[in-house]
């Protein structure tokens, strides 16, 4: 009996061991919520934006995107409501400006693009590691490894990544990459920031931008809402917003947690190694307890001669 038992036990633990060997190794998350110390960001002051769409045009040119359906000086796009909602970035436009009309207030214009999170949900949800948060602060994407599962689109709390569904052989994720390849890498200002005639955006180190933002609020407490959107949302984002109206009135999602998205998944990730470690012994033990001393059934049979099913 002891020999049989031992072999069965080994078989069980081997299977478990194999599973452990294949188990994903977990990175340490959340250790550094501030992100890279010298990560760059952009401060968007919405009180200055007049909705000229120059940034959209600059982005289109910089990223060699296809001709838009309506030209960039056509302001009827502000009245478009695809699916009953405001415009969002698409595979043809990495940034869009929307007009919001708060009650009893002037219209507010808001530029939307990838916010370049400190701990990006897209990155942590990607099973081929196609996303990288660069030390410069950009969240970039490698289309050479992307399988096209689109989990990043599920995970992104801002609804940014778009997908080129129309391509049959090489569909890829399309999103703002902070002009990483052409500009940020060399320390240059992103195209949209450079193109803005109103100095809506300030490009700089994220740490500095947060100071500037709070300075502006302190100096004009009546003009601004006392909040820097992106300072805390989902662990902090590279792009930060100042607003003259409550953020929800400019279409911002104000129900986002201040923890990074990955923190929600940690409960599950933590049980993975436990299941891998405990289950083999637990269930092999159950097997021994349940079958010991039973005279029939192939539980005993198959271990000696392979005959079964009497």
């Amino acid at each position: 009996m002891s020999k049989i038992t031992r072999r069965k036990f080994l078989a069980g633990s081997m299977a478990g061991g194999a599973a452990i060997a294949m188990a994903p190794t977990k990175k340490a998350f959340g250790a550094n919520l501030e992100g890279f110390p010298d990560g760059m960001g952009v401060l968007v002051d919405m009180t200055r934006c007049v909705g000229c769409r120059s940034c959209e045009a600059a982005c289109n040119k910089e990223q060699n995107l296809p001709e838009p359906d309506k030209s960039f000086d056509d302001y009827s796009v502000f009245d478009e409501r695809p699916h009953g909602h405001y415009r969002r970035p698409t595979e043809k436009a990495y940034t869009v400006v929307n007009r919001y009309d708060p009650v009893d207030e002037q219209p507010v214009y808001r530029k939307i693009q990838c916010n370049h999170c400190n701990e990006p949900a897209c990155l942590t949800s990607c099973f081929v590691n196609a996303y990288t948060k660069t030390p410069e602060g950009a969240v970039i994407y490698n289309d050479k490894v992307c399988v096209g599962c689109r989990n990043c689109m599920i995970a992104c709390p801002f609804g940014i990544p778009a997908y080129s569904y129309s391509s049959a052989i090489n569909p890829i994720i399309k999103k703002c990459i902070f002009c990483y390849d052409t500009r940020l890498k060399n320390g240059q200002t992103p195209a949209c920031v450079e193109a803005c005639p109103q100095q809506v955006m300030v490009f700089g180190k994220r740490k500095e931008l947060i100071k500037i933002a709070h300075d502006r609020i302190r100096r004009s407490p009546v003009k601004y809402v006392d909040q820097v959107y992106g300072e805390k949302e989902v662990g902090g984002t590279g792009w930060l917003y100042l607003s003259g109206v409550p953020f929800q009135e400019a279409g911002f999602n104000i129900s986002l947690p201040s923890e990074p998205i990955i923190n929600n998944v940690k409960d599950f990730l933590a049980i993975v190694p436990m299941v891998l470690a405990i289950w083999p012994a637990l269930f092999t033990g159950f097997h021994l307890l349940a079958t010991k001393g039973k005279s029939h059934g192939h539980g005993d049979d198959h271990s000696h001669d392979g005959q079964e099913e009497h």
Partner: protein
Amino acid sequence: MKKLAANGIKPHDAEMKADGRKFSLMEKLLLGLTLDQYVQQVIRNKFNWLLALIFVVGIPLIIYRFIFGLGVVTHSSYDYPWGLFLGFGLFCMVPLSASGFMLGTTVEIFGRHDFEPIERLALLNGLLGYFFAVVYLLVDLGQPWRLAYPMVYSFGPAAVLFLVGWHVATYLSVQVAEVSTAFFEWIGFRRGYEFIRKGTIGLTVSGIILSTLHQGALGALFVYAPGKVHPLWYSASFQWIHFFVSSIPAGLCMVICVSTVVIYTMKWRCDQRFIDSLDRITISLAKGASMGLFTYLFIKLLAVAHDNEWAYLATGWGAWWLFEMFFGVILALIVLGVGIHHKSVALCRLGALITVLGILLNRLNTALIAFNWNLYPEIPHIFEVIISITIFAIYVTTYRFILNRLPILYQFKSRAEA
């Protein structure tokens, strides 16, 4: 086949013919019939006509999708990146295929050999469900030829999907090994059969591990989307355990449903052992399923209490959630309970059907209906629906092809017994 049986023709079920000659592979494939007999019985069956009709429409559409891209068969939604292919194909097929590890555990680990007549059906149900979940995935992936990338080329080990990918792939091979015993018997490869049988315990235990984790992981995938999934269907702490626990009644009830279809439409293929024990086993499986369902009901309420979401119950979404719970869980529990109490196989089968529908509703709710609840509802493209139905039809066809041949519903008569 019924007509043939009435004429005294018996399907192939043993290694040797009555005269002591071995069956050839061709004869095995034709179920021991002549080619004429085989073709005639295929044509006689009206169900085959329905399948043919689905294939005529659906298979060209699948080809169309691969030539022109996902954009032509879906709405190319940026807000609903996962449509029916994953919402139904992956998130519904996988829990309904939990039967393999459930029955494997019952028979092999707990030594309950009274469940043996249905073990192979449950294993096959698991294998095919997973295999076709992968088929759905291949249709949905933007670049399906890169499916193996997370295994061999570029690793994102911190992602839940990485775990799902690895575990489904590993578990598929485990299930292939488990079902291969039936194939080895059928083809007459005795040594392969014995080799696999020796590893049964190891295979079964790894099946439990992998199932626990990836059934749960499918739920954990939605934990990435707080705010997108409606709070009643979202639980950061419990999502994985909701998905895992509900997969238990799902898998058991799927076996009850499949065995019901089998006993009514393929009785000729079932041997006396299967036919005689099915009623008893159905009631036992129903007992297991109702325990699973009761636990599931409890932890679903626990999650609402934990996140203090009672206020949502008074909204329209709350009514929909209550419907899912009352129909898919509470009604199922009542029907199963009455069925078990009165030893009514028919009621147990009805309860199993309700459970399966309830699980489908839960998964579709999480993945599609209550997803983006504060945006707009997405109605899948008609081609997406047709392709999903077509793949399901291929699944049914494969299922039937294997059940007709391999010793799943009947015991193979080896040389000694013939």
